[in-house]
């Protein structure tokens, strides 16, 4: 009897779970779609993750779990943290976005005093669609939801955090690169920086696409190299439009890529003459961009004694 009951309970759970998405609004059958009302707007609460207890928990998770994993599975190098010296928070960290590793790499390379007061803008439709992913994003990244499409009130939460002295990590491309090359920046981040009159610190993350491109949820084997380069903070100039500032932000990241490829001196010279190579990738068929974008970056230093 007991055995039958157990088995039938398992069957029932399987039955309930079949075709449903637990914790997320289930997909309506096709013929029911016109009769299904849109989901009610709801935002996962994230303020708890920025309380002292939440920050302490984040520090433990980042230092004790995330960093050991990322540093064990990849070989990151960090450059340019000295650019943060003398900068008064809050600032906006912006970076190219090609992998789920990006936010972790920034947060685990930032000095603790910066990291402790840094929150990450995360796409509401992806990172805040189910409770468990929302909780993970809020706890580990200090994440807060932001609408990709912009619109009225889209940056209200970001502004509230900046006023409270929080630094923000923002990926102005809005989504991960499908081919490793940098996409056009959306103007929301430049507009926010101008509105709040805050410095923007450009960061170039090189090799993250090759290590863990879109579609992978664990880095490739072989500890692929990744380099994280922090640049000099940019400030919106008097009367500068958000379009112009956004282009300047893109250029700053492109210069960091150029610096990584050659040297600081050469990159500065090319920047001075407006010849910094663009990061939009080669023209031609899509496969070619993906092919070039996923090329492993060169390892620095001596090769290991054994493989």
């Amino acid at each position, binding site marked *: 009897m007991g055995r039958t009951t157990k088995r039938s309970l398992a069957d*029932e759970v399987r*039955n*309930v779970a*079949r*075709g449903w998405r*637990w914790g997320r609004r289930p997909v309506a*059958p096709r013929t029911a779609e016109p009769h299904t009302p849109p989901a009610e707007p709801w935002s996962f609460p994230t303020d708890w993750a920025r309380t002292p207890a939440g920050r302490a928990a984040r520090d433990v998770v980042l230092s004790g779990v995330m960093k050991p994993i990322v540093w064990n599975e990849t070989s990151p190098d960090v450059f340019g943290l000295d650019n943060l010296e003398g900068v008064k928070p809050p600032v906006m960290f912006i970076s190219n976005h090609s992998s789920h590793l990006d936010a972790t790499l920034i947060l685990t390379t930032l000095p603790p005093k910066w990291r402790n007061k840094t929150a990450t803008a995360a796409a509401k439709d992806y990172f805040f669609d189910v409770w468990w992913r929302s909780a993970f994003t809020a706890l580990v990244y200090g994440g807060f939801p932001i609408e990709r499409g912009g619109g009225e009130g889209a940056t209200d939460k970001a502004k509230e955090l900046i006023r409270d002295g929080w630094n923000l990590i923002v990926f102005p491309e809005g989504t991960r690169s499908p081919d490793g090359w940098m996409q056009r920046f959306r103007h929301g981040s430049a507009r926010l920086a101008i509105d709040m009159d805050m410095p923007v610190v450009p960061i170039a993350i090189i090799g993250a696409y090759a290590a863990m491109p879109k579609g992978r949820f664990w880095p490739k084997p072989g500890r692929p190299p990744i380099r994280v380069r922090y640049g000099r903070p940019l400030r919106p100039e008097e009367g500068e439009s958000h379009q112009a500032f956004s282009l300047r932000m893109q250029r700053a990241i492109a210069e960091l890529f150029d610096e990584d490829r050659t040297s600081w001196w050469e990159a500065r010279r090319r920047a001075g003459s407006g010849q910094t190579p663009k990061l939009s990738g080669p023209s031609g068929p899509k496969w070619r961009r993906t092919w070039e974008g996923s090329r492993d970056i060169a390892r620095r230093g001596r090769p290991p004694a054994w493989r």
Partner: protein
Amino acid sequence: MSRPGFVLEVDERTPPLLVHEGEGFRLQKFPLGSRVIYPPDALPGIKDVREAIRRALAHPHDSEPLEALLKPGMKLTIAFDDISIPLPPMQEPDIRQLVLEEVIELAAQKGVEDIKLIVANSLHRRMTGDEIKHAVGERVFRSFYPRDLTNHDAEDHANLTHVGTTDQGEDVEINKRAAESDLIVYVNINLVAMDGGHKSVPVGLASYRGVRPHHNVSTMLHSKSYMDPRAGHSAIHDSCARMGQLLKDNGVRIFTIETTLNNEVFPQPFGFMNKREWEWSLKEQATYLAAKKANDMAPPKLRHQVWMRVLSPYGVTGVNAGETEAVHERTLARLHQQQLTEVNGQSDVMVVGLPFIGPYNVNSIMNPILVHCLGLGYLFNMYRNKPVVRPGGAMIMFHPVPWEFHQVHHPSYVDFFEEVLSQTTDPSTIESKYEQQYATDPWYIHLYRKSHAYHGVHPFYMWYWGAHALDYLGDVIVVGGNPKACERLGYRAATSFRDALEMAGDTVGRSPSITYLHVPPLAIAEVR
């Protein structure tokens, strides 16, 4: 604005769907391409029901206001629907209570002293005091019961009046007190399209002699369907209309008050049963699992007690008063707004899950004959224009069909099942050979009048309700049904839905089209 009903086509995204099976329920997977008829969402209930009732009484349709009809020294009879509606019974306050209180308040103000309240139970069992109290409220009950608030007695010949005979030869015999009153106020709850209109007084207050002209096999076979009371569609309603006209012609004054309810059938925490499955929240999924397991593991008696305590949190969607036909037209329009779903074409197989309750097993047991009445009688007939299933198609029902009877409420059912159905299931043969014997049996009449038993003829009517479906369908299969009871009813029992489809293959082929009528909450299929 609530959502209208619609027809779902099962695709790979469709979760298993809720199917009722008596005092139980399950999630059942349906074959891809099956159609599922969903009723409209619950209409919003009227916020101030008492005010709506007052307005309806003051501004009736094709009638003077009730206040103007009430005069000192008059004889007033107030009749109201019995326990067979609504289903499940309504949470307090019952709408009958609210209407009765307003009517009686007006009568008191106008100096009416001779008031009698009658439960229009026709040949149904007498309601108990507690049941009446639940329906009419404590104030009405305390003021009138038992002297001036009684059950109608269809076998008390001294208190019945033969009003006349219609041009079709139909005897109209109703409660004497009602027939001789200066005014009958009838308080109705219109749960399905079959209820109300001229079916209220000529049937609810009638004797066996007054019910027999339309409760017979011929009328049932010509009622397609009796859930579609438009003239010419339902012989039973045509007959009732003639009787109503005869009452009118003979000076019986009726002031009809009809009410409609919304689709809020299941109270919390069982609210998930009112919702479409893909819209269940995590909490509702968990509630389903907990309720399902608790229900399956509970001893049958406890399970029965729990189900019988379900009271629905209905909202009132309409109150109309005045002349019977004018009122009923508006009532039906409101009812259809709540229950009608358009369906394109018929299918080979109709599937339906029979719920735990029907009109005749409130606080009682759903015996096999009531299963027949609910499935092939009521749910098969939940259509307009033409049935959901094609002629010669198969009907698959979910119900355990327990071989079980309530000895107090259904004594003649026991004998009907043992003596009549064991001989034949043909409605016409049953009618001609056995009906008179049961209808006039003194012991059944005694139990009907003095105990709480349904009239001796009642199981026959239950069988007749399904006559049209029996005549129309090629096969009836019951998933989970007691094989012996099903065999007695002329059905076939299957252990699973897959088996039932396999068995139906003999009748409808290997790849039949399937339509599942997803009730309750109730839906009427408008089949094009």
